[in-house]
């Protein structure tokens, strides 16, 4: 099935690239969604069955794949909304959809790959396809964003490659050639410490570009800012999860070796710095999209803290990254509507959104509460668990610092969101305001509803999958 999926999806992507007809475009995109859905269901039913040697739908992969499929449907919908609102030339539209399909496909493949090198290939592919999305508007700024994103990601991916080489050094010492995660896990205790450490530094640093952690998060901010909002939603949710998959799987291997605590410290430093950087910029930034992007950085940091703390933190980390994907996606989708109302992303130009788009403002309001982990957001549960795990792991000072930073973030985030929702905008003409249909916000409500459902009253199967995903970590 994976083979069929990859061939089919990339085929659709190719067709989309050359197709200029609107109808066929719809058909192709629907075909892709059906394929994606079918693939997801198939993989869910065939959990843990390797395919094409390099792909295994394990629990984590399934969880993230389902997340991706759920988000991809509204993403396509909002893409049509986005493109429909501007008279784009058909060529650009074709490239946009081709790139989006390619992005979703390569992300899906990266989730499922059981081999670090294969993951690496698909991560590289995500960079390429995402760059086409970022460059969609074809102006100076988007060019700059694209250039930075591609360049920083290229460097990062090279670092990952170096890390993989080091990993293979450490592995050849252990006497096996296979770089699949299961093999690595099996050989973990025998891995050469020195090479493993080197590998960890490089792989971790490389993947931070995708996950959005210090040090390489930088270009991702520009990318999420410049990409059209549906693409931004994908980048801030499913694409981030790719970085998480890379780090998580490798971390699982490392956690069985003697360098575990050392790796924990590195992650801890990166996570704390990420939350700190997010805090700094949340207080400063005046661009809604960039603010959301920084908020993603914060959450990536929190997820990593969960990993570091261990215990219930592992569980919290996986749940958190999934829920965060839903929240961030809906916020970015909503941002698209805000842009249609104000034709601006700047905090200075927006305001009184409550008046112009009631349903949309409700999404924004809920999204804010959800993203800052207030009930009934599921993130409240996960953050509580993370705090608990930090406490139990003895990272008291980390806990205090994180709590302080999160408070500042809530203040800053809230200040901006409430400015957007309730303060009257300066020099804004009400006449030509586009009326946004309430139904356009429906998908966002569904996504947010999922966050409540999965957070407060998760189904057993879901919990089981998460437990399955973290079962290889030391308990």
């Amino acid at each position, binding site marked *: 099935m994976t083979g069929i999926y990859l061939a089919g999806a990339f085929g659709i992507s190719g067709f989309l690239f050359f197709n200029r007809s609107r109808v066929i475009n719809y058909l192709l995109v629907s075909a892709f969604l059906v394929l994606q859905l079918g693939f997801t269901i198939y993989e869910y039913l065939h959990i843990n069955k390797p395919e094409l040697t390099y792909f295994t739908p394990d629990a984590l992969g399934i969880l993230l794949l389902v997340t991706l499929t759920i988000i991809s449907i509204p993403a396509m919908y909002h893409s049509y909304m986005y493109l429909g609102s501007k008279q784009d030339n058909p060529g650009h539209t074709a490239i946009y959809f081709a790139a989006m399909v390619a992005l979703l496909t390569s992300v899906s493949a990266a989730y499922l790959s059981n081999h670090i090198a294969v993951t690496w290939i698909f991560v590289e592919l995500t960079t390429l396809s995402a760059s086409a999305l970022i460059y969609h508007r074809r102006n100076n700024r988007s060019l700059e964003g694209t*250039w*930075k994103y591609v360049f*920083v990601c290229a*460097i990062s991916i090279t*670092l990952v490659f170096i890390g993989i080489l080091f990993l293979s050094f450490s592995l050849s010492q252990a006497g096996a050639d296979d770089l699949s995660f299961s093999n690595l896990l099996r050989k973990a205790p025998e891995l050469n410490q020195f090479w493993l450490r080197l590998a960890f*530094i*490089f792989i971790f*640093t490389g993947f931070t570009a995708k996950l959005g952690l*210090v*040090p*390489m998060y*930088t*270009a991702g*901010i520009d990318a999420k800012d410049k990409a059209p909002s549906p693409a931004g939603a994908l980048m801030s949710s499913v694409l981030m999860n790719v970085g998480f998959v890379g780090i998580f799987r490798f971390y699982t291997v490392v956690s069985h070796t003697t360098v575990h605590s050392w790796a924990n*410290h*590195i992650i801890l*430093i*990166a996570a704390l710095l990420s939350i*700190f*950087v997010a*805090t*700094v*910029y949340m*207080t*400063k930034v005046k661009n809604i999209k960039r603010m959301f992007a920084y908020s993603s950085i914060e959450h990536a940091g929190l997820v990593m803290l969960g990993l570091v703390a261990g215990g219930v933190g592992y*569980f919290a980390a996986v749940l958190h990254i999934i829920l965060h994907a839903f929240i961030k996606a809906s916020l970015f989708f909503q941002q698209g509507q805000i842009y249609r109302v104000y034709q601006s992303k700047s905090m200075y130009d927006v305001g009184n959104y*409550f008046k112009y788009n*009631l349903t949309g403002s409700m999404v924004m*309001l809920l999204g804010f*509460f959800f993203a800052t982990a*207030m*009930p*009934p957001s599921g993130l*409240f*549960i996960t953050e*509580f*668990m993370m*705090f*608990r795990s930090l*406490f139990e792991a003895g990272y008291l000072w980390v*806990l205090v610092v994180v*709590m302080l930073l*999160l*408070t*500042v973030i*809530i*203040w800053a985030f*809230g*200040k901006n969101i*409430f*400015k957007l*929702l*309730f*303060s*009257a905008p300066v020099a804004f003409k009400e006449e030509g305001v586009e009326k946004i249909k309430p139904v356009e916000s429906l998908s966002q409500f569904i996504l947010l509803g999922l966050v409540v459902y999965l957070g*407060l*009253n*998760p189904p*057993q199967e879901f*919990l089981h999958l998460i437990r399955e995903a973290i079962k290889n970590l030391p308990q």
Partner: protein
Amino acid sequence: MNESILLLFALLVPVAGMITIPFIPHPFRARLSFIIVCLVAMVTTVPAIKALGGEEIDSLFDNSLLAGNWSFHVDRLSAWFILIINLTCINGAFYGMGYMKQYDAQRANLSLHWVLFLLFQASMLWVCMAQNGLVFLIVWELMSISSFLLVLFDHQNKTTLQAGINYLVQMHIGVLFLAAAFIWVYYSEGSLEFSAIERFFSTHSNFWLFLLFFTGFGIKAGFIPLHSWLPQAHPAAPSHISGVMSGVIVKLGIYGIFRMVFFLKQDYILIGEIVVILSVLTGLYGILNASVHRDIKKMLAYCTIENIGIIGLGIGLGLLGMGSGNGLLVVLGFTGALLHTLNHSLFKSLLFFTAGAVYQQTHTRDMEKLGGLIHRMPQSAVFFLVGAMAIGGLPPFNGFVSEFLIYAGILLGIKSIGIASNTLMISSLAGLAFIGGVSLLTFTKSFGTVFLGTPRSPLPQEPKEVSRGMRLPQYFIILIMLSVGLLPSFYFSVTGSIVSAFVPATAGGSFSVPAALTNSLSSIGKFSLIFLALPVLIYFIRKRFTRRHRVATGPTWGCGYTAPTAGMQYTGKSFSKSLGKLMNFMLLEKKKYREIRTNEVFPPERKYTSHYNDFFVTRVFDGLVDRLLYSMNYFQFIQNGKIQMYILYGIFFIVLVFLGTALKLI
């Protein structure tokens, strides 16, 4: 009928209401909301009354939640607070129906408002019932969020937004403290159930965990120095919301503290002394600030802080009683606190409702712009007068009863052994008396400025008495207030039963209320009634006497000056100026004016404005927050747009990890 099913209704009914309200026609929304508030109140009042009678209700929603079971429990303490919540919410919703008419044009906003009001009531009720730490935190946060959004109703106003966000952030800080406390309990006991807290207290040192809880709940309750959200959020909210917030939300902080106090196993004396000291300071600080503020709702908000101080004093006394095994002191302190909680929720919502009536008619909260409203709104004036007397603890109203209990507690506590507690008690006594004195000044000032004299500035429209719908709940409140004032023994027996159910026998729990105390209480009721009658009698005699006398009317005697204007009246500001001056080390007055220079022969018209700043906000928090935010500027170089730098961060990170590893730092 099974009570747990009733409790389930308390969850389902508000949710159903919240979904329905946006979809029904606009004119019915407020009414539906009121009906649902009443319904929810009904389904929770029944179990609450049963619980007060001794039938405690346990309910367990078996749930696959990550945190285990959602256990709910209605015991006497919850029941007491549930009753207070329901009473205040029904009054608030009823009043709100009338009050919100002025905003009829903002349909979406109103609809949101009524939806949130339901969530607000429900979450408060659930806070009182939740027995699991995580569930408690969730409903607690829901309560904060819903009240925060209710505060934001008048969101076009910039200060409202600021106040709202300030409130949200401070509530979040409170939750962090609570979360830390629950996590600690979980860490050591392996459970988030409240019973685990009790286990924790019986095996560990009590002080630090209690401190965490106290800080978390204290932010909600408004103990200094954690009060600063209160004087901002209350004025910003619509009046019935301020009434409910001040009447109940802050009381849930008290509820939390009570819960924890009843779990305590040792360190009573230390904790009690700290609570007493903090409470007296809170009371003094609150009332002193209230006395100088000219925004009527801000004044009331500070006054809430004062009353929290009084309640806290009661709790502290009870703790001291537990520490010294003095059952009577336990009972006096705790019942005083519980009863004052009820009383304050009554008269504070009454006062906020009248403040709302004034605001509705005059569109200003600035007392200095008002005056003479008693002629236009006589009933509202009487409401305010009654509220003012009650809040000042003046007989025959309810405030006196609870304050009397606390006074009696202090007088009992004075006899305790040890100079430290003796001195503490006598200082509390003096403090409480002083608080009473200042509150007299505060409320004569407020009532006098707003309702008496002549109007100080032209108003946009002629004020008139508010609608009957808005007055009705106020009559109702006054009725209950009088019932407390005249039948104190009944209320005492109810609160007494709550206390005796919780205090362990080892800490003075097995007490018998001496006859002298019940006698005192019934005397208070009796003589209050007489006191209510006596002025009427004298007034009647006066009427008889002066019937035949000549009565003339004329202008107020101007002491020889024949052309007085309304602007020459004594203002609220000048009324409290001397106090403000004496206390200027704490009441920070900010004046804005320009001196007349010597060479200005014909000085132009100029302005003089002055307002008071909160001591803690100005001297402590503003500076800290400013510095924190300013320090963020130092790190603004990170995202500087230079791609070379971005690469450099990666290199730095890798090199630092290398170095750290090589030097064995990581």
